[in-house]
């Protein structure tokens, strides 16, 4: 049933298209960078547990879809929405617009408030957009579909364009409200086009456009109920496209077929094949995996003279493309830490010590001889998770633990001794310094949970370049271990590792595990992505009542390891009640 109007190159070569659109986005400066607000130390993940809304609701059975609040479009959603919906090329929202993040994502409803300054920006942007759209005969023609100045024409325009803008049909009362704007414009002497223009400008200035609003027939009841097909279409489109439903989704909502399991599943397929789903890579993976942080990552030029904007851009693009491959291929998620693939251009190939590819674009390479593989071997990750002038095993280890194993270590104690005071940093041997630091039992308890993951990556400097020795000449020892105490504290099954878990470097060799495998073996690794993705898709932090739904999704998704792909995870999450239902917040 789904027509695939964009089924052009994107289907045959989604990666090529992504690369293309990513670079064009990066060049025009439209892409939001560094919205996640997570430093090298990371933050609590999207899987962080907020205060349960109603602790009396049973938490073992999937019974409570939770409460999703009204959700103001964030900067990237606003730009994508007006571009898709109106055909404009303008991107009025910029980094100066109001935004907030929570749990590592900038699409969390609870921190997307508005104030008068921000509302004025919306008000001005609506005028700007209408000016642009009405100056183009084709775009204007899509809105002004009739030329008579009677009620019927106005209603017909509100019926078609109004539905696109509000993502649902307007009620009769609403039509009357906005028709008044048309009438005022006429009374001021505006012609038909100008009057329609003002009316559409009013729709674009409205809460019902600027917020995604879902309704409960009884907000005081906590009984769950299915979303309307229109509400479901919006949840889907903002999850996968960061944008409004297109006409096909609105049609499937209009005839109410979208709420059927098979139609919903085919809608997801259709949407993932559309290149608009590149925004899932940019906005979800870009924030979760830190790709947005790479370009603005500060480095000290006297330490890393070769790090420059072009290289940073290539490193960021590689992270997007790496995740993109998992989103769009049959490669299971379990390969994320171990897949031996890179995406390079001439700049980054040189930095990696590989042969430069021909041409100027990003090229996919499999290089088994480069001593690195998997996500943790990507230059972008290794740089983004470091301070500006050295590597930090603590930063890298903590980032991996929090973001890929969904485990937050306890807060540091109030009086932390300083690193410099405990060892000599002039040799560049951070490991020695860290060992001294860990001699303090108060520090050791926490550091034992995450430092090992970072110590195994010490052969990669603060911009991800391979090194065998520190600047002072001492040889780098990438061997490390998780103690039995740490093993049980961060989610491994203790019985599997009675003597702890030893590993060294990224790759497994000579019978010694590499960090890539050590992370993959953590039982929380496979389920961490579902936690992060569910939080992103709902635009809220998860609560205890989400766990039973996640358990169901994970069980089905991971049942056949060869089919545990990101695409199948998306299908699994979308099929759950937590995505398709809602409830009121109660009295």
């Amino acid at each position, binding site marked *: 049933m789904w027509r695939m109007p964009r089924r052009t190159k994107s289907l045959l070569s989604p990666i090529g298209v992504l690369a293309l659109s990513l670079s064009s986005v990066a060049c025009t400066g439209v892409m939001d960078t560094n919205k996640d607000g997570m430093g090298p130390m990371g933050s609590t993940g999207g899987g962080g547990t907020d205060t349960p809304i109603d602790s009396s609701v049973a938490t073992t059975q999937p019974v409570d879809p939770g409460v999703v609040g009204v959700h103001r479009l964030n900067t990237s959603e606003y730009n994508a929405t007006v571009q898709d919906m109106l055909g404009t090329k303008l991107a009025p929202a910029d980094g100066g617009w109001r935004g907030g993040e929570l749990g590592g994502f900038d699409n969390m409803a609870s921190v997307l408030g508005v104030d008068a300054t921000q509302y004025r920006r919306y008000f001005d942007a609506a005028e700007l957009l209408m000016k642009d759209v009405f100056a183009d005969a084709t775009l204007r023609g899509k809105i002004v579909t009739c030329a008579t100045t009677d009620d019927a024409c106005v209603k017909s325009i509100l019926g078609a364009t109004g539905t696109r803008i509000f993502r649902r049909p307007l009620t009769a009362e609403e039509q009357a409200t906005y028709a008044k704007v048309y009438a005022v414009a006429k009374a001021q002497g505006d012609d038909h086009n100008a009057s329609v223009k003002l009316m559409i400008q009013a729709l674009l200035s409205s809460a019902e456009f600027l917020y995604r609003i879902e309704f409960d027939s009884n907000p005081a009841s906590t009984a769950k109920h299915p979303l309307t097909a229109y509400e479901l279409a919006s949840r889907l489109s903002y999850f996968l496209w960061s944008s409004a439903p297109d006409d096909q989704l609105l049609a499937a909502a209009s005839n109410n077929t979208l709420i059927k399991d098979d139609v919903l599943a085919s809608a997801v397929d259709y949407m993932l094949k559309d290149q608009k789903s590149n925004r899932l890579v940019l906005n979800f993976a870009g924030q979760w995996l830190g790709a947005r942080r790479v370009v603005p990552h500060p480095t000290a030029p006297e330490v890393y003279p070769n790090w420059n904007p072009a290289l940073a851009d290539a490193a960021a693009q590689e992270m997007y493309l790496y995740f993109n491959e998992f989103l769009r291929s049959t490669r299971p998620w379990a390969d994320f830490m171990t897949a031996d693939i890179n995406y390079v251009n001439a700049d980054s190939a040189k930095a990696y010590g590989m042969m430069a590819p021909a041409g100027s674009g990003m090229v996919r390479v499999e290089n088994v001889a480069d001593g690195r593989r998997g996500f943790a071997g990507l230059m972008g990750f290794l740089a983004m998770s470091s301070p500006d002038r050295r590597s*930090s095993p603590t*930063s890298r280890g903590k980032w991996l633990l929090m973001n890929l194993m969904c485990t937050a270590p306890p807060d540091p104690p109030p009086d932390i001794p300083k690193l410099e005071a405990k060892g000599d940093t002039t040799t560049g041997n951070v490991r020695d310094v860290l060992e001294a630091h860990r001699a303090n039992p108060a520090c050791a308890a926490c550091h034992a949970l995450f430092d090992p993951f970072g110590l195994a990556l010490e052969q990669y400097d603060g911009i991800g370049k391979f090194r065998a020795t520190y600047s002072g000449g001492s040889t780098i020892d990438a061997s490390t271990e998780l103690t039995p105490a740490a093993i049980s504290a961060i989610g491994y099954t203790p019985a599997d590792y009675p003597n702890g878990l030893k590993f060294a470097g990224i790759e497994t060799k000579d019978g010694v595990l590499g960090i890539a495998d050590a992370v993959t073996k953590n039982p929380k690794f496979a389920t961490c992505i579902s936690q992060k993705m569910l939080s992103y898709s709902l635009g809220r932090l998860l609560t205890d009542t989400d766990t039973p739904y996640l358990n169901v999704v994970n069980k089905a998704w991971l049942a056949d390891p060869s089919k545990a792909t990101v695409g199948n995870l998306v299908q699994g999450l979308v099929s759950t009640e937590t995505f398709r239902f809602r409830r009121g917040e109660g009295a």
Partner: protein
Amino acid sequence: MNRFVSRRLVLRGAGVALTLPWLESLLPTKSAQAAGTAPKRYIPIFLPCGAIHNDKDVWTPTAQGVGAAWALSPILDVFGPALKAKMNVLSHFENGSAFNKDGSSSVEPSHGRQPGAFLTCVDPGVIRANLKVGEANAISLDQVMATHPAFKDKTALGSLQIGLSTVYAVCDGQPCSNSRSISWSGPTTPMYKLVDPLEVFNKLVGVIKPAAGAGPAVPDAESMKRAARNKSIIDAVLENASRTQSKLGAADKLRLQEFLQSVRDTEKSVTGVSLGMGGVACSAIAAPTMKKVTPDGIKQNTADYKKADHADAMNNLIVMALQCDATRIITHMLEDERSEFTYDHVTQRDFKGAGMSVESTGTCPEYHGGGQHGSLNSFSSISRWNASKVAELATKLDALKEADGTTTLDNTVIFFAGAMRGSDHSCHDLPVALIGGGAIGLRQDQHVDLVNRPLRDLHYTMMNKVFDMGDVKDFGQNLTGAPIKVVSEIVM
């Protein structure tokens, strides 16, 4: 055509200025006034990451006392003798009692939580839990003041929020508004500050009255029409959102309430045909020329971005805003808490001994991994640079004469402070200095050790004793149960 828009477009497009002589010649054209009639202004300036390093305290003056009895510290010496004579350095204020029942100093995660209580003296987490929403706080001091009859409707802008943030701060898992917004106009509405100097400038020139003869006396027909059209949009938006709001649950209603309020606040500016709502007739300074700044991506100084130029531009705008009486309350964040901006323009001083080293400094909160808040020298050099920008602002305000012969600084309280002590992340012993206020009831030229006095007492004192808000009887929270008290040490 609406004058606000036309003027703004012209300025943005051509970079031209309404260039007029600077400083005293820009004085509002007012007739001479009796002493004590100058407007009172309040300017909280947020110092990120505190200022006191565990290795050595180079913020706090060594001796207490008045006048010659105390001397400026190595960080505060940038204020120099003229401003020292108009300062209060107040050591050992604490804000731990807003968070902890025993009033203790540990509030973790510190960077993500302590700034939230900077101007509210309430733990935002408690308000969030009460309202069952993800982002909330108490109304901040500046907004309590802006909506009080002592300030309300006296100026075109009730208040102004600005800052120098060019990169999103790390939020430590807390709502980022805690570390990026010190002003809260409603329980769920952190006020996002403007960081682009031109945007601040446009906001100000949009509300000040043109000097006599500089603007049209009667609005033209086109701007009347435009006002009517905008009014019809605002009416439709309010009508529909009110209807939608009535169908929602409590938390969503609150969100829509915030929306409705924002629309109403916007209505004035898009439907007014006259300019200068309440502003004193006054001329603008030259439009800032620096490249547009957004709060999300500049992590170090570049060819296009110089932190010092940014700071200077904002200082000039603060001066213009006060001089034109566009607003009397401005909150200014020198940086977000736990920003990762690298202060590579700051020459590192040696605070341990004599002499200067030439190393550039790192980020302010090189947290934990690099030693907390970096070394004594890098951390203190950054704090001292920040203090120098406050001193420059104070100097400019002290050069402006009011009609009654006092200076603008004498009628302004600059509350220059951090939300944490410094490298130990303690919520006790906060770095706090007040600059100015000599004509409106503040004692001057003293360093007082307040021995763990709750910060809310200071905020209360401002309202109660300095800003004519004697009817306000309480502010913030003190979980230890200690009653609120005037800080009598600072008032005349």
